[in-house]
């Protein structure tokens, strides 16, 4: 029973993290049809930005936990805006309309560039930003000690998910975006500035990536290569859920998060196996993912 609760808690926390990491990836794919390999790098940039800001903020020994959370989020948004703008204006806008698979390769090139750019900016030594994590303390749930920061992450994931959903389903801009998702050409013919929607989407997606990184920074040591690890997990989430679907990403994150927690508790050697195993299984049964749409080719 205890381990069941532990699996549930661990799984939900991990799922929340997976969702945060994957949300931006699925938004960008949904609107732009770009499977962004560099999304993990955005995550890493967010983590580095947050870790250096937190380190600076607490460097004189003072500093309040409350401010540090604002700092985390502020850093994430700032980094997202800057990186998103640079990448979209400087690279992607010249590449629109190419094959999906070619976009994967282009964003892979971007990943390689950003990985080294981070090494040049932040060096190769680890950064830490544990203060916000420890400041929140721990709770005891059914006899298990759980970090409050991790629990808060669940709340953040829910808020981000609902905000994205509300934005897409309940606002005018969301309606326009859904039109772009449904049929880019028709939307364009009806006067939607598709390129502007792309820019906006990319900024939002990038910021979701940096936000995920910034929020993760307090619970990890920020080192080179974290983005490369994260991107394949994010892929698994969105592929399971159905590329481009927010609900899908949420369900995919839960499925993978709980599966992994189970593996960690009962068969730790399968920790990594289980994520890609579940992904392969879902794809074998439903190639378009749980919430994906199938497209047939018109001849």
């Amino acid at each position: 029973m205890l381990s069941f609760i532990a699996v549930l808690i661990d799984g939900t926390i991990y799922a929340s993290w997976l969702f945060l990491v994957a949300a931006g990836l699925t938004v960008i794919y949904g609107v732009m049809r770009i499977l962004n390999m560099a999304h993990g790098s955005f995550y890493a940039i967010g983590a580095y930005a947050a870790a250096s800001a937190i380190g600076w903020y607490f460097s004189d020994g003072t500093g309040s936990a409350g401010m540090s959370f604002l700092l985390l989020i502020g850093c994430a948004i700032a980094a997202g805006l800057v990186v998103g703008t640079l990448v979209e204006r400087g690279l992607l806008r010249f590449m629109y309309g190419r094959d999906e698979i070619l976009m994967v390769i282009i964003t892979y090139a971007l990943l390689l560039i950003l990985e080294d750019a981070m090494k040049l900016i932040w060096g190769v030594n680890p950064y830490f930003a544990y203060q916000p994590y420890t400041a929140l303390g721990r709770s005891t749930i059914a006899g298990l000690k759980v970090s409050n920061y991790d629990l808060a992450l669940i709340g953040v994931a829910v808020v981000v998910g609902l905000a994205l959903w509300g934005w897409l389903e309940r606002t005018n801009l969301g309606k326009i975006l859904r039109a772009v998702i449904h049929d880019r050409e028709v939307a364009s013919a009806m006067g939607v500035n598709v390129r502007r929607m792309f820019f906006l989407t990319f900024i939002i997606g990038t910021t979701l990536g940096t936000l995920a990184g910034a929020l993760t920074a307090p619970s990890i040591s920020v080192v080179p290569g974290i983005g490369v690890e994260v991107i394949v997990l994010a892929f698994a989430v969105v592929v399971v859920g159905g590329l481009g679907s927010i609900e899908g990403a949420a369900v995919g994150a839960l499925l993978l998060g709980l599966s992994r927690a189970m593996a960690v508790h009962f068969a730790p050697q399968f920790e990594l196996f289980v994520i890609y195993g579940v992904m392969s299984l879902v794809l074998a049964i439903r190639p378009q993912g749980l919430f994906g749409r199938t497209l047939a080719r018109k001849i």
Partner: protein
Amino acid sequence: MTPILETRGLNKTFGAVTAAKDLNVRINKGEIVGVIGANGAGKTTFINMVTGYLPPTSGEILMDGKAILGLAPRAITRAGLARSFQVAQLFPELTVLDNLVIALAAAESPHPSFLKPLRTKARVAKAEEILAEFKVAAYRDARVTAVPQGSRKLIDIAMAMIGNPKMLLLDEPTSGVSVDEKGDLMDTVMAAVRHHGLTVLFVEHDMDVVRRYVSRILAFYSGEIIADGPPDAVLADERVRELVTGHSDHKPAANAGAREGSSVA
């Protein structure tokens, strides 16, 4: 006589849309059948179902009296039912010659060889013969992307004929082709059809073209066949005049540029 192609009670619905309703068609050897109908009347859906690309919701499809429903398009092709496409389906980055040579090799065997060269002298000679027959020999070494629309359609039809099919389904052979090219294109195609003694069903919007070549017309309207018979009788039919040919003899332009790869709604 057993018809070459027969459908019995063929139905197809996409959600709330009925694309085919109780289609009963019998086509006999040697017939040249024209299919007319507005866009969305279910003509392409009919061809797609018959060739195994789309599963019908219900009904039967028989070829030479044998059920072919449920077979993959490749099996139906091998059984002798070939088709061409509204938008020519070729291998764009390969040369026209290679397009045909690949089709020739495919017709020879369903199990291609791993090490024997594809371009044998015999196949190349045969391909050149076909290119000449379809009057596209000038494009022998051009990539398909450099070939004009009308010639692409001819190559598309030529590839469909390569396996010596018993019956050929032509989906709008003249769509996307300029008005002055239509006549030549159809002459070339029909000359080849006669030369090989094929049974043909073709979809066409241009009533002049239809009248000139067919021995029988099927008129489609919103998934149903509303008339079936000799051209004069069908074209004189009140409902056909009202629902199919009434507005204009010209095909609306919208469909001509139907994009490859776009999704089926």
